[in-house]
């Protein structure tokens, strides 16, 4: 009896020591700038369920209204990791910055919606011609709007683009300042709710697949390599939890983002960490759009240089299928 108790004490001391060592090693918290999107769910879940803590990480999540702002935070050194869609990522590279993709966090094909005011006669994409359409610059939403306009034989010149943050755009369409907006959830949902039966909603699930990227900087990753591996492993655990307990995790995410759980559109997301060939394809497509929009002849960068598959291939070797 006494022997058993002594053994327990010894084990407890060893564990405490190990934990203290781990803490000292990772004493520096991982600052994560999170785009306030349902797609960012794995980060929220991992934090809420304590997977980061289990991995010996201290993680600070900070929500940003767009992935673009989140990426800026990383590039400005305010954060270590950010979630961001392809467009802001591509734009930052064109601006000469060097973010690095750790993994594709999420692939979503109904990410961006176009909400128009039906009461102003907008009942199709074609009716947008000449109308004021709000969009957030340098985001996937802008790329989406561009693709949709092209698909319908128009260009962005055919509409009056109004740029602004998604929340501002949403308020403006509600107040009637804009005829339509191109935003993502939860802003789209808010606008639809407000316009009610007057809302015209358009989405396309094949013209564009949005990859939400987990990005950092190469410098940070090299300095915090094992920490990053642990970080990714915690996210893998979160994805597993989302697959196993969809209702519970959706509630966690909805609460964190301040939206209703049913509006999370859970089923349209494929929460699998990956790095595959579709990413450079998409990035190149966006890059061409950027080049065309800027009207100057710039070479398309080699996006594989902006990929950091090392930590992911260590955390989950099967998830990396891209060849650098």
């Amino acid at each position, binding site marked *: 009896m006494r022997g058993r108790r002594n053994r327990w004490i010894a084990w407890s001391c060893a564990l405490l020591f190990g934990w203290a060592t781990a803490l000292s090693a990772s004493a520096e918290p991982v600052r994560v700038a999170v785009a306030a999107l349902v797609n960012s769910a794995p980060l929220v879940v991992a934090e809420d369920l304590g997977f980061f803590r289990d991995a010996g990480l201290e993680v600070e999540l900070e929500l940003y209204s767009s992935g673009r702002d989140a990426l800026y935070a990383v590039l400005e050194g305010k954060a270590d990791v950010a979630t961001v869609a392809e467009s802001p990522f591509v734009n930052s590279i064109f601006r000469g910055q060097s973010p690095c993709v750790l993994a594709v966090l999420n*692939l979503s*094909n109904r990410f961006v919606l176009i909400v128009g005011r039906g009461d102003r006669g907008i009942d199709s994409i074609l009716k947008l011609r000449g109308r004021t359409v709000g969009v957030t610059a340098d985001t996937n939403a802008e790329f989406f709007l561009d*693709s949709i306009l*092209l*698909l319908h*034989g128009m*260009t962005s010149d055919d509409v009056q683009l109004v740029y602004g943050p998604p929340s501002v755009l949403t308020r403006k369409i509600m107040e009637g300042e804009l005829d339509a907006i191109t935003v993502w959830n939860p802003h789209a949902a808010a606008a639809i709710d407000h316009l009610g039966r007057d809302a015209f909603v358009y989405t396309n*699930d*094949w*013209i*564009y*697949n949005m990859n939400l990227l987990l990005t950092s900087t190469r410098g940070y990753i090299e300095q915090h390599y094992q920490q990053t591996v642990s970080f990714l492993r915690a996210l893998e655990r979160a994805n597993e939890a989302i*697959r196993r307990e969809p209702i519970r995790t959706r509630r966690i995410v909805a609460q964190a983002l301040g939206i209703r759980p049913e509006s999370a559109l859970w*089923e349209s997301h*494929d929460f699998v960490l990956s790095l*595959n*060939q*579709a990413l450079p*394809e*998409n990035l*190149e*497509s966006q890059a*061409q*759009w950027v080049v*065309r929009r800027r009207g100057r002849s710039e070479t398309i960068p080699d996006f594989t240089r902006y990929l950091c598959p090392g930590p992911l291939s260590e955390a989950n070797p099967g998830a990396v299928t891209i060849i650098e």
Partner: protein
Amino acid sequence: MKISTRLRLNSLLPLILAAAIVVVFAVSLRVLNEATERQQQTQDLLNGLLELSLLTQSHVQQPLQRKLSQWRLEYLAIERILGGLAGAGEGAAIRQRLGENLNTLRELFEATAEQLGSEPAEGRTEQQQVLTQRLLSQLRIALRDVTSDALRLDLLVEQQVAGVTRTVALGVAFLAVILAGASMAAARRLNRTITDGVQELSHGAAILGSGDLSHRVKLEHDDELARLGDEFNRMAGHLQEITVTRDALAREVASRIRTEQELRQSEERFRRTIIDAPLPIAVHADDGEILQLNRAWAELSGAAANELPTLGSWRARVDTRPSDRFHEHVARSYLEHHQDEFRTTTADGNERIWHFTSSPLGALADGRRGAVTMALDVTERKRMEEAMRHQALHDALTGLPNRAFFHDLLQTSIARARRDGGRLAVLFLDLDRFKRINDSLGHEAGDQLLVAVAARLKAAVRESDAVARIGGDEFNILMTELHRDTDVVRVVLEILDGFRQPFVLHDQEVHAGTSIGIAMFPTDADSADKLLRNADTAMYHAKEMGRGCYQFFSPQMNARIIERVQIEADLRGAVAAGRMELHYQPQFDLTGRSLVGFEALLRWRHPYRGLLTPRGFLEVAEETGLLVSIGSWSLEAACREMLLWRQAFGLEVPVAVNLSSRQFNAPDLLPRTLDILDRTGLPPQWLELEITEETVMSNLDEALPRLEALTNAGVQLALDDFGTGRSSLHWLKMLPIHRLKIDRLFVRDIETDPDDRTIVQAVISLAHQMNMRVVAEGVETANQLDLLRREGCDEVQGNFLGHALPAERIRGMLEAGELGATRH
């Protein structure tokens, strides 16, 4: 559970195992088939997607309507395959996404085809080219996604198949292992149950066989072996009981045999011990049978063993004393160990002393009680003891008790005398001139003299007296059983008489005298030492008076003895010399004051002392035996005188004559009385005999027939001195007494002492109730007479009425008519 049941179940186990494996196989096969089918479908799906991918590439490069149609057909085929795929969980999710991606692919392909088909490549606008490029890019991504999903699905199905296969293999193996294990365990358990049981039984049997019958087997299961074990234990129990009984019996038998042997040996030893013992030993039963006696006992008895069948027959041959104690000894011998000493005398006169030791032997086989008696011949020892004791207590020269012995004897006698109220006399003797004899004739002669003196002293004393030599020429004599003072004197005189004869010592006649001092118990002293001292003192007084004298320690005693001796000497001649005479006192009737009789009163006319009443000599007369003859004389004289007066004066009154105790108790009282009456011719009714109350009451049993005989002879009887004795009313009633005489003591104080008067009243009343007359004697005054009359007294006698006078004077008075004679 029964072993047979378990055996049957065990045999069924392989069947169950086989059946289970078959079932598992069947189920697994079914599952496997389904999985394989799904795998085939995913393979078809993959093949279809490869085709679709090829067609897409082909169409993009060279758009043709045919290719478009093929693409669409291929797409439908893929969609159908996908629709046919079933599944759940992750597979379903992949399939759903695959469907969506396929849809996306189709949309993209259609949109792309539309773009490609609308215008030739060179005729397209920039916008169209951008769009086409963007569509193609998305198309590639979509193709990749679809293919990826299909591969994931294929992988999943493959995994499922592999899982099923593994599960089946593992399941079958597990089942087989489980069942085999269970079967083995059951068999092993069964085997152990059987082998353990058999082993336990075998072990139990071995232990039982080795002789430990207390061992029991322990079988825990409830099966055939357990029942066999129970039977085994029961059998062992029976066997143990039988063995225990047999062993106990054997032990008992062995013990009895041993006991019997020991008993026989013990008996034999005992018998031999008894037979060979030098001590007389007899074993006897409480009915008196002698069960065994040894040679020594036979020798003690002076008879052969077979002549002594019982203690009775033994006692007939051997006189055993004390006899009554021997009876008691034998009776006690059956109850307790005890010892006694007996003297025996055999028929041939052999006298021995035995120390008998008897011990009870308890109950004999026949229920009688037995005892063993041993006798130890202590004759010699006793004789030696006796001799030693004698030596210690006796004077070696004369054989007389020595000073110590005498002292003891004296003390014992004093104690007895004190208890019985008896008297003792201690005589202290000293030989006169012994020293001179010793010196002149030698010590030997002196010794001879002492021996001779001892012999003469012993001859002189009575049997009850003890003579002791207390040293030198001094002797002591103890006299007990003294009735009279003269008993002492008589012995003393006898001793002195004996010394008058000369002793012959060495053929020479030697005269040796002695002086005797006498001390009396209890008058002179009350202890042995004082008595001896006083006797010694008296002896010196005797020596002073001259040799050959004796002297009492007390002067009064000396005087009285001298007087008594004188009286005795005088009395002896008095009767013969006619110095005894009778005086007669008249008795009167109180009513008529007439003469009713005379009492004859004895008087001794002593030559020097004058006329003596009986009080002065009666004791001596009685002690010397002279009283009987005096009494006879008195009776005869009174009868003659009365007859004379009767004849001369026609006097018809009786004469009362006193009878002494010795006279009354003399055996010839009646014949002697009748002889006197006969000789004198006086009619018996005129003779009244006065007997004291004490004489009658001291021996009432003998007195009564005498009184009756006298009454029957016609003699009148009066009870004298009534009131002084211890008469019982009961006896008084029975006595044939005619008159009661109230003692003069009561009459004397009748006037002054109310008690005496009460006594007189009571006596008168009593006598009257018993039809007796009462005569009061010693009436001295008129008042006394008056009182007696008033109390109803019948007759009186006393000096107030008439003195006791010699016969001549009475005769004279009768002649003168001074006494009024009356009829009795």
